[in-house]
């Protein structure tokens, strides 16, 4: 690609997950199935970092025009949840929605997403979250890039398109580095990026009316043996909740100030201070 890129085609991968902000006490595993029991009364959400990826895409679109296509993979995806990118301002939603896609590992998921992206065909930029809020794998973005043969930059907090390249601020432990990458490229987003926008009423209405495109494994030319549980390269031997030992001693006092003094004395007594 030469010279200025005008209209950008941007694809954002968005995962539906159990609400990661549910209180830790509500987290349960069913030992008979080795699966997480969804906490009652807490609907699933779009994975946190993926909302930042949508925001990053929309900012580029706002700046120079473009088309933003969101894509979600799963089984029985809840339309109200996965339409969030549309209500934020994305143009198109593609769902890879089929039982065969369920329970994949990063390999199986990245493969299916990459094949869907190939089918979409036109893209300058693919955006993902740095890691999904359920399995915290942090691999799918790099996997898609590798399968499609694209350069990748992970854990970004800002993307600018300059002279047909992306200028990316990548978060590192003591600050950030500015990286220039040729397009098309894959970039993963972190929460250090500007906050995701709230859907507007207009956006919500538009999203309600918009029907997602649904693709089955055959539509993207993948064999069921390569995706979902069948396509895994890692086996999960066990899923368990670590036991939390320890008991908290509550330090009391007549007033908060007195409790504070008692705490300091206690820390001295047990030689922490």
């Amino acid at each position, binding site marked *: 690609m030469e010279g200025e890129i005008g209209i950008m085609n941007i694809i954002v991968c968005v995962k539906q997950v159990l609400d*990661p902000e549910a*209180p*830790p*006490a509500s*987290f349960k*595993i069913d030992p008979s199935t080795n699966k*997480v029991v969804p906490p009652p009364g807490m609907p699933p959400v779009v994975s946190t970092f993926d909302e930042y990826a949508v925001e990053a895409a929309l900012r580029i679109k706002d700046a120079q025009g473009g088309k933003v296509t969101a894509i979600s993979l799963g089984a029985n995806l809840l339309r109200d949840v996965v339409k969030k990118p549309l209500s934020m301002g994305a143009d198109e939603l593609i769902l890879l929605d089929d039982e065969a896609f369920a329970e994949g590992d990063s*390999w199986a998921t*990245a493969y299916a997403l990459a094949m869907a992206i190939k089918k979409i065909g036109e893209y300058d930029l693919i955006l993902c979250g*740095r*890691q999904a809020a*359920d*399995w*915290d794998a*942090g*691999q799918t973005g*790099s*996997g898609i*890039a*590798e399968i499609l043969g694209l*350069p*990748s930059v*992970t*854990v970004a*907090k800002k993307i600018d398109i300059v002279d047909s390249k992306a*200028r990316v601020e990548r978060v*590192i432990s*003591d*600050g*950030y*580095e*500015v*990286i*220039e990458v040729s397009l098309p490229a894959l970039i993963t987003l972190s929460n250090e990026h500007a906050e995701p926008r709230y859907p507007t009423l207009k956006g919500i209405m538009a999203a309600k009316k918009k029907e997602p495109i649904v693709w089955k494994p055959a539509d993207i030319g993948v064999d069921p043996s390569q995706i979902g549980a069948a396509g895994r*390269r*890692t*086996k*999960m*031997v066990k*899923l*368990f*909740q*670590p036991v*939390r030992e*320890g008991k*908290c*001693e*509550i*330090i009391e006092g007549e*007033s*908060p*100030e007195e409790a*504070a*003094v008692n*705490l*300091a*004395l*206690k820390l001295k007594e047990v030689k*922490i*201070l």
Partner: protein
Amino acid sequence: MSEYKGVMVYGEVTNGKLSAITTELLGCGRKLSDDLGQELCAVLVGSGISGLAQEAIAFGADKVYVIDDPLLKDYQTDSNVLVIEKLVKQVMPQILILGQTSIGRDLAPRLAFRLETAASMDCVELAIDPDSKLLLQTRPVYGGNARAIFTCESYPQIATVRAKTMAPLARDASRKGEVITIEAGLDPSVIRTKVVEKVSEEVAGIKLEEAGVVVTGGRGIGGAEGFKQLEELAKLLKGAIGATRPPCDNGWVPDGAQVGLTGKIVAPDLYIAVALSGSSQHMSGCSGSKNIIAINKDPEANIMKVARFGIVGDWKKVLPAFTEKVKELLGG
């Protein structure tokens, strides 16, 4: 698969020294390779790093591969994947471990896909299964609410390791090992990224990851002003300031102060958690602390279940009195 043998550690260098995570990886790798009855090797990638090979041996490596090339000065995905791919195909290790750092997070998955194997990220325990001899990879999932053990039957088995979860060996300068220099042989045109600039946002004073005391504030602190009060206590205790994600997202403190799953991993002697709920994602970054102290107005907050001592109350009332008393006790 039997032609694959040994354990390989991807070493990282910071400020001209082996980074702490690298010595931890070598400690863990030594144990795994002894359990397998095989060799432990390390690989050092960079520019002007060959002098550190002996150091990797002192921390447990039998062999060190050094790939030293000006093109490798900055970590870049394309160049690192290429040189490690080549080395892995030559050495054929059964296991490859890296740190869960900005480098390991980026390199491990891309390399795993390139080599058509799989990686497990952010492991907190690694062991050899006595029957299958496969690597048992234990990692927190669901933000730390659960743990899962994974295996992978394709080689090399790749894992990244969370900081401060493995013990380094004591440095032994008399240890003997072999240093092997490998040509990078890189064609610069294959590197599709360019590092334009590095911006350090390091806060002055004690490094968060190395501090013996960490005073951390959460959303309940309410603003940058409040963090000034936390700073006063931190200074008094010669500690560092930490934060949960909301204060960072809100710009009350620099992003680098975030402790947790996607922030820094700390394990100080004393961790003072003020006005934070103790989400599993936050606890992922500090649960290794020796003593956790909580100040929270909600007795039901999760942090009250994991702390050793707690005060139920408004931090605005508790903290000044606490700081005052600590100052007095420390005689200053």
